[in-house]
């Protein structure tokens, strides 16, 4: 385990491994997204209450899930940074922040485009929408703090603390629809009993969710490789890599 940990943590090994994984992850993402979009937009039936407008679910829900998942990845990487000072964890947290912010923005924007025709409003200050907006500001805070500190290693520690402070928001987002009266409805897929969504609508949703995960993995690894090269630009292995490219 420890040997694996150190081997994986070695920059050169990670760089090569990520480089080999990226085409596969990206290819799988493209395939799943194509199938998911086809099933979601052409094959899935319209909803008994919401008609065709519910099709926004196929991007809104995966974005919202990813907005929270990426934050958890960021905070976990932050914990590793604070305890073990692993450089790679610093890079993963740093590259994740703009991606997580993008997913959060998409969840809010597509939710707004869904809320206007269905609820009758673009925005309400209910607990779910407000806590998701706070998540967006947490990502912005992370990026601003990182940009404000010149030394990358100090910045990584400061932002790790910030991400850990904000992690409390994640359970609040998830349970907000149960703890308070909200305009936003409760969970559909992650309910304890069977999901209350018809199978023909659920399958494209899960495909899209998997595609979003793979998208994140692909772009994260691409960003991490670049960041790794940048931070180690004076080393011999980077010179070798550049010469061979």
């Amino acid at each position, binding site marked *: 385990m420890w040997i694996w940990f150190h081997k994986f943590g070695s920059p050169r090994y990670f760089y090569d491994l990520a480089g080999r994984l990226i085409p596969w992850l990206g290819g799988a993402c493209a395939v799943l997204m194509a199938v998911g979009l086809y099933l979601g937009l052409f094959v899935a*039936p*319209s*909803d*008994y*209450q*919401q*008609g065709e*407008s*519910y099709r926004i*679910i196929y991007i809104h829900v995966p974005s919202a899930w990813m907005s929270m998942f990426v934050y958890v990845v960021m905070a976990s990487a932050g*914990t590793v940074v*604070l*305890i*073990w000072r692993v450089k790679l964890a610093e890079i993963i947290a740093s590259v994740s922040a703009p991606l997580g912010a993008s997913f959060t923005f998409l969840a809010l924007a597509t939710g707004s485009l869904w809320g206007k*025709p*269905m*609820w*009758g*409003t673009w925005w*309400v*200050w*209910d*607990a779910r929408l407000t806590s998701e907006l706070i998540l967006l500001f947490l990502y912005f805070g992370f990026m601003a703090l990182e940009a404000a500190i010149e030394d990358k290693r100090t910045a990584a520690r400061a932002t790790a*603390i910030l991400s*850990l*402070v904000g*992690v*409390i928001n994640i359970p*609040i987002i998830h349970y907000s629809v149960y*703890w*308070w*009266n*909200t*305009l936003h*409805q*409760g*969970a*559909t897929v992650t*309910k304890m009993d069977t999901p*209350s*969504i*018809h199978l*023909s*609508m659920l399958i494209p949703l899960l495909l899209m969710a998997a595609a979003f995960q793979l998208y994140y993995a692909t772009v994260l690894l691409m960003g991490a490789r670049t960041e790794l090269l940048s931070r180690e630009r004076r080393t011999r292995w980077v010179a070798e890599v550049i010469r061979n490219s």
Partner: protein
Amino acid sequence: MTPKRRKRVMLISLMVLGIGGATALGLNAFRQNLLFFFSPSQVANGEATTDRAFRLGGMVVDGSLAREDDGLTVRFAVTDTAEVVNVTYTGILPDLFREGQGIVAMGRLDQTGVFKAEEVLAKHDENYMPPEVGEAMKAAQRAKARVEN
């Protein structure tokens, strides 16, 4: 694990626990203010303010929707299955507004206990299904209700 790292783990755990505890206490204190709407039961108990505007949430009672002659003003009743509040509203209703659906209305109570809404939002549930399945389920519910009666 080196003592230095163990200390860091302790510090981080304490920090997360502290923030979690503080947030839990804070949220508990503001519980009422974070309520997006009041239910008809809460209104009946006098929990909602009568001097300020507030939000009322519940199901539109089946068969209660009536339109005034001006064609824009509607009257309907909202229930949480225990209590009922009558609502009047002038304006365009959202697409999802229908009898039996959940809604949230912003407005205030008048002296007669009628809720004068200034804004009506539709709340949708977490169920998604094709129209045929929805129809079949409604038919099954009706059949069940007939048997029980």
